[in-house]
């Protein structure tokens, strides 16, 4: 068990290293560097040389990769290209904001999705299932910017309940984002709920038709106990991985939503960094997103294994 955990951790670390190499190589391959971007038209001759020496860009790519990667491990991503700010401070604020949005969306979306998924699964093909399943498909197919715009139109323009965009800068405390954050949460949980709901529904249907659920019924176990004690533990296991993917997606920055609502999260930062050609920031964000994906998926796999007795025995036996 412990060996398995260790093995998965090592594999995850290798993935992250490979991703970091790819990011670094990708940025290296681009024409120009921080100095050409910073000096713009004056980027030539002695000035350019001096800038490069100052920033250490004259050294070999090999040395610079290790310097960058070594810094990243310590949480130090260097300075942003444009100015004097440390990337770490910038990213921390943005990450905090993205995490806030993700946490709120998850807190709303996951319980709702599981509840509705179980309801649609248990009442399969009944009116309640038809209505909810159709709405889920609608929620999935409508592009986020459309639903976001419609919500702004209704709640901000017509009803004037909630402001349509976030005005607080990134480094403001959490409380500054309420109530503006409510609309992005609604849009995000709509998409998320739809995905998880459909998965939970089909899983519930499958498990409710299984032999052990029939057996529990014929053992005289009351219906709701059959559902909660016998069926749901098996039916909800596959949901863990879908939720994990959603978490990674949310933390990685939901670009469209953040742009529409002017929300200062990772997605917006990414877009801004790309348009400013702020390559160190792009590098840092990409790396953080990669680590998040690996970490969240690893957690989900381990959770699934811990909660599924069959997998648990399988791995114990192997080691």
């Amino acid at each position: 068990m412990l060996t398995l955990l260790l093995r998965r951790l090592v594999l995850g670390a290798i993935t992250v290293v490979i991703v970091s190499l790819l990011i670094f190589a990708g940025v290296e391959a681009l024409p120009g560097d921080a100095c050409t971007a910073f000096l713009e038209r004056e980027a030539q001759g002695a000035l350019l040389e001096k800038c490069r020496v100052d920033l250490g860009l004259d050294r070999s790519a090999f040395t610079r990769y290790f310097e960058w990667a070594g810094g990243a491990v310590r949480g130090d991503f260097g300075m942003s290209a444009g100015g004097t700010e440390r990337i770490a401070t910038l990213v921390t604020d943005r990450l905090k904001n993205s995490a806030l949005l993700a946490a709120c969306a998850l807190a709303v979306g996951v319980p709702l999705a599981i509840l509705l998924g179980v309801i649609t699964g248990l009442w399969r093909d009944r009116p309640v299932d038809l209505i909810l399943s159709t709405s889920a498909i609608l929620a999935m197919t409508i592009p986020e910017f459309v639903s976001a715009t419609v919500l702004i139109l209704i709640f901000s323009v017509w009803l004037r309940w909630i402001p349509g965009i976030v005005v607080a800068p990134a480094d403001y405390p959490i409380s500054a984002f309420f109530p503006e954050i409510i609309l992005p949460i609604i849009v995000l949980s709509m998409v998320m709920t739809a995905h998880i709901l459909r998965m939970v529904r089909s899983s519930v249907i499958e498990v409710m038709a299984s032999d052990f659920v029939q057996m529990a019924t014929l053992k005289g176990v009351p219906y709701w106990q059959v559902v909660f004690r016998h069926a749901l533990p098996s039916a909800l296991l596959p949901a863990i991985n879908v939720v994990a993917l959603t978490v990674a997606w949310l933390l990685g920055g939901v670009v469209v939503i953040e742009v529409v609502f002017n929300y200062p999260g990772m997605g917006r930062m990414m877009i801004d960094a790309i348009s400013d050609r702020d390559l160190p920031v792009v590098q840092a964000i990409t790396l953080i997103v990669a680590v998040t994906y690996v970490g969240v998926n690893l957690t989900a796999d381990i959770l699934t294994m811990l909660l599924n007795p069959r997998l648990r025995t399988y791995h114990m036996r192997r080691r």
Partner: protein
Amino acid sequence: MGASPLIQIKGLSVGFTGLSGRTLPVLHDVDLSVARGQSVGLVGESGSGKSTLALAAMGYLKSGLRLLNGTVRFDGHDMFDQRRTGLEAIRGGQLGLVPQNAGQSLTPTIRIGKQMAEALRLHSPLPRADHRARALELLEQVRLPDPEAIYRRYAHELSGGQQQRVAIAMALAGDPDALLLDEPTTGLDVTTQAHILDLLRDLAQARHMAMLYVSHDLGVIARTCDRVMVMYAGEVVLEGGTRDVLRAPVHPYARGLLASIPKLADTHLPVALEGRPPAPGEGRTGCAFAPRCALASDECRAAPVAMQTAARGMQARCLHHERVAALPLGGTGAAPVHTVRDGPPALALEDLAVCYARPGFWDKLTGAAPPVATVQGITTQIARGETLGLVGESGSGKSTILKAIAGLLAPLAGTIALDGNTPLPPLVAARRPAQLRRVQLIFQNPDDSLNPRHSVAQILAQPLKLYHGLGGPALRARQEALLEQVRLGAHYLDRLPRQLSGGEKQRVAIARAFAADPDIVLCDEVTSALDVSVQAAVLELLNDLKAAAAATYVFVSHDLAVVHALADRVAVLYQGRLCEIGPTAAVYGRPSHPYTEVLLGAVLEPDPDAAPRLLTNDAADLAPPATGCPFQRRCPRHMGAVCDTEVPPPRSGPDGHVIYCHLPAEALEADMAPGGTAS
């Protein structure tokens, strides 16, 4: 209360709504009653409605099914006119169910102990504090070793026999007055099956329970029931005392069914029933069996046949039951073909060993002891035209040997040689097409082995194109000839596997194997997934092909009677080691290895007077022992230290009959010591 039966079903009809919108019945006007202390068997083939009937007795219908007519009463309660709470009190309480597949019927996420405690919480009057003790007591009662350990386990951590015992213990938790048993032993080894049936019999007697057994296996019914009801196409066609029904059945279907069961004492092949049963819900005018019946007259086809009282108080749904009774019992089947030809052996195995567990990088680094091989020391030769049967319980390595021959598993050691001297590369990937052509495999389940999106023509064309380069009219002619050979018409070429019945699918699988024109055909439990009457037809077909195509078979089966019917030589395997090998008659006769004796003793025959001979304490081992005789831990004739430490020597008899045992031949000749057997 004593006078009225506990379970009483009257005029029950159950059906579903077909795609056309019409109501299609799957049970037609069924009557059934079981009294306290009585055990009734429901026999029939798949699709006969026997399981539907048993579940209906609990007031339960699978989704899609509807009650059309009739009543189901349990102890006076109408099971289809109950509130949910009423049903919940009866189910699992007074009326227990032992499900068909215990492995899938136990909740995978809840420990056995908790599931037992749940049953007690719902149905037992005992205070909660005593539940644990009671659960352990029940587990002990179904003769599970180490109940404490079982209590803490999950279902998947138990063997098939243990899971079935747990399911029985759980059914007993509610202290039931009646037990429904839906194929309680299907899928278990013969020895486990015999033990579980004995256990159920004892329990029924001790608790004076009413039992309703559902089974396709007349041997199981013969062992356990007082009365038998034979079902065909959703109707009861014959009802009577077990002895009468098995000895002198007065319905032609029951007769055919009985004749299609292979028996140990019979050297002939079982006789197949012609035709196929109507699909559930198919319309009918007269007797449902008339299209397959040799005695059918116009009268039979004109109107539904009512139950008739026949000889010895049997009830038969047959107008000609008197003529049926006068027929000789069990027409003799074809004689098995034995065509051993001279020349080099078709296949030679030399000291074959197979191991699933490969030492990983970590094991090599730490120098861990190598795992004990799954199969070891298999040396034998198979002559051209010969059939070698491999028998043994699950885990005996019989399928593993087939996989190694087919090149699906690389052997750990030893050689596999064609013609006795051409060694085959260990894995399929390394074998040349000419070598691949010569070894063909037929799988247990044709549903899995035939591509569902390929038509029969495509399925047969693949080997023909690949190995023989056929095309155009020649291909078509060969396809038709192959179908002819497996007794399917040319019109089957355009069908997809799902449009075929189980037996027809297996015929297509056989035709595909023979399309390659193989020297050796490996048969892996090819009849286990089929109904007995269909199984008889497939055995007949394999036998005919043996005569026509001089096929050499390696035939794996857990069913000793099936192997007996077809094989020329038999190898008995335990834990992947040879126990006994020799001509069929010699292996099934005396002298024999103690394990062969145990296996043969556990076979259930459809004969009310035959009782299996069982070992008192019998449980299969999980892994082969590191030294000595593989059967040491279960052997009723264990001799002491020599069995545990030394590999038993081969004791040779006439005709290449070899027994691997420390006991001298004279001792093996004698019957088992009485101390080692149970009644």
